[in-house]
């Protein structure tokens, strides 16, 4: 980046070139700004990676450092020693994320599409229900009661799929806006004239035209599923069903909890048996895993999807 600005500097005599110079100074500043912003995001990540590779004793003695005294793979060795638990949690997370995202997109779009059609009866009432759930909910205990005592999904995979995550009113409103603004009513009409039924219109015409919004919402739900640990915390007792994020979160939560309960001398001892700093960092690195790969895939649609409904009217 420096090379390009330097190359632009010497030939700055005539006025158009001066403009270019100005703009290249601005360009330089902008670049500097974004390099710094980028560094602010990346450096902590690099630190985590380095800490995960540091020898435990040198962390206890010197604290975190970019240039540790001694490197060690112990943390990863420790995690791989218990690989089955880790792989299992990975499997659960991936399964839940894929199934959840696909189902969620399907249900959301199937609700959002009718809401976008002007000829759908009572669509304002239905939209109001969607809207209402964004603003109000029953609170934690009733929420828990409904899922455990009414639907009995405690300690099953459904507990990771259904609560909170399957449908989000906000996403539905985004989708509805996209459908109303980007899919011309005349297009749907002409499809009908050509003899397409509602299902065919929806799947063959509306959905293919809505890839940007599907990708955007898809990314949100993917992240939601991948990062969710609360449902595991609340509903799951069986160790084979917990997700990767909860596997990691529970270690942190346990440490926090034990630290705030040090009056009990036995608890103090438990604390020393918890995974060490380096192991926690290694877990974070492993946890980033496949989700990083999802970003480039969705990115192409992301900007397009986010500006949905912003300018068109």
């Amino acid at each position: 980046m420096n090379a390009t600005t330097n190359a632009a500097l010497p030939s700055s005599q005539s006025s158009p070139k001066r403009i270019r110079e100005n703009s290249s100074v601005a360009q330089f500043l902008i670049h500097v700004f974004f390099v710094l912003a980028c560094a602010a995001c990346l450096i902590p990540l690099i630190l985590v990676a380095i800490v995960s590779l540091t020898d435990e004793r040198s962390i206890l003695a010197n604290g975190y450092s970019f240039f540790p005294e001694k490197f060690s793979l112990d943390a990863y060795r420790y995690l791989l020693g218990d690989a089955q638990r880790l792989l299992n949690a990975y499997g659960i997370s991936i399964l839940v994320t894929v199934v959840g995202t696909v189902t969620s997109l399907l249900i959301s779009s199937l609700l959002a599409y009718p809401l976008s059609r002007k000829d759908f009866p009572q669509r304002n009432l239905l939209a109001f229900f969607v809207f209402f759930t964004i603003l109000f909910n029953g609170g934690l205990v009733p929420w828990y009661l409904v899922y455990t005592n009414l639907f009995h999904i405690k300690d099953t995979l459904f507990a990771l799929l259904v609560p909170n995550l399957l449908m989000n009113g906000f996403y539905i409103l985004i989708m509805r806006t996209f459908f109303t603004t980007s899919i011309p009513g005349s297009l749907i009409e002409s499809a009908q004239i050509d003899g397409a039924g509602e299902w065919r219109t929806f799947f063959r015409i509306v959905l293919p035209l809505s890839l940007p919004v599907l990708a955007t919402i898809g990314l949100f739900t993917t992240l939601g599923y991948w990062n969710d640990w609360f449902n595991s915390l609340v509903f799951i007792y069986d160790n084979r069903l917990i997700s990767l994020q909860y596997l990691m979160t529970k270690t942190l939560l346990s440490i926090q909890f034990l630290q705030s309960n040090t009056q009990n001398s036995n608890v103090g001892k438990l604390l020393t048996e918890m995974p060490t700093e380096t192991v926690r960092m290694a877990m974070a690195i492993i946890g980033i895993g496949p989700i990083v790969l999802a970003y480039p895939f969705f990115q192409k649609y992301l900007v397009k999807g986010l500006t949905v409904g912003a300018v068109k009217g």
Partner: protein
Amino acid sequence: MSALKKKMFTIAVFVLCISLVMAGCGNKNSDSSKGSASPSASQSSAATGNGEGGASELKPYKITLVYPGDTPKDLQEVQSAISEYLTEKINATIELKPIDWGSWLEKTNLMFASKEKFDIVISAATLGYYSNVAKGAYLPLDDLIAQHGRDIQGVLGDEILSGLKVKGQIYGTPTNKEFAGANGFLFNKALVDKYNIDLNQINTLEDLEPVLRMIKEKEPGITPLFEGNNRFVGSLVLNGQYDGLGDGFGVLNRNSDALTVIDKTEVPEYLEVAKIAHRWYKDGLINKDAATVKDWGLMQAGKAFAVQQELKPGKDAEMSTAWGFPVVQKQLDVPYTTTVTVAGIMLALSKTSENPERAMMFLNLLYSDKKLINMLDFGIENKHFVKKSDTAIDYPEGVDAKTVGYRNEAWMFGNQMNTYLFPNEDPNKWNAFSEFNKQAEKSIALGFAWDSEPVKNEVAAITNVSKQFEDAIISGSVDPEVYIPKYREALKAAGLDKVIAEKQKQLDEWAKNK
């Protein structure tokens, strides 16, 4: 007009549909609970009729035990082994339900709130014992103990049990363990041996000071005294000198016979110890980040000589194993029994238990049956442990504490003094515990449980103030002559006087009904 009517109609239909659905489910639920309630009633009558006599005459029942901890690999296997044993004894089976420490409070609170059916749950003063009693989540145990828990009474003694009474009723049976706290220091053994330090000569902080100075001089890389994570020089006085009466705001002086709640910052010892701590801090005997460290830091890294610690017999052996190098302990005060140390860890029965009698029989076995408690703690013999003698066990070959398929915390359940010991533990540990308990001075307010509800806003404010000052003062990080008056002022502004008055009122009330 007609449009409005139409809308109203739709809403009405919708509401009706929802209420129908809900009513349907509600009915189903109440049916099922009715269905399950009646056999349990007949079960319980059978149980009370027969006492503990014949197991075969009791109807089968599954006891659910909820406790904090990791789920071990071989949980199912141990569970069925225990069930088999229990079937013989009281015709019951067991379901072990460990919950991670991190989600313990959320999960159990939701279980209580949703009236989930389970029988026995771990409780402690720090795990919400008093708030759960107030909520009505636990069953009162007095009658049950009298009927089916005679061994519990025999093992623990009335004094300890009544230390847990809330409004005249017992709600939990504590683990039979150390019921007192004593304060002192842990020392890095390598350094103690290297300089031939006679720990018996160290009985006060004044005795300790020259040793710390010597370490500082001779061992430049070593921090003489490590402070952090609620382990400060001042903790000696805070924990040793007072009965904190629950939250530590408004305390009783241990050496006084009067039930008078006082402000700890006004006691001369508080200033004294803070002064010593500050002197040590200034002279570099203490790590500079004392007030903010949240772990064992330098001590665990082997780069410190001593650390303040609440002690019990064998604490040094425990920490030596945990840290991987030997440490020794030295106790500086006489053990002290307060409500909080008694309520350290206990087993409570859930209000939702369908057969509290059977659950109590199981509890009784935990205090009397050696085989059962060791199975619950350590798993199956020759698979998870091998016996070395009548009282000692070790891990089987090729297995260690990290890889063993089943292991519970022995201090959580029943009569800990019936449990086996590992080779790195003192074979006389349980005798030492009994001795320690006997030695202990009992607080004159033992059994008093502080209810902070009437002044909870003040307590919250005081907690914030104390976070700001306390650690800094008792760790010696700031000059006590300046900061203790400031601290006192801030406490007063936050409403300490009101809290003390309320505490005094409750304490007087308690003393009257004792």
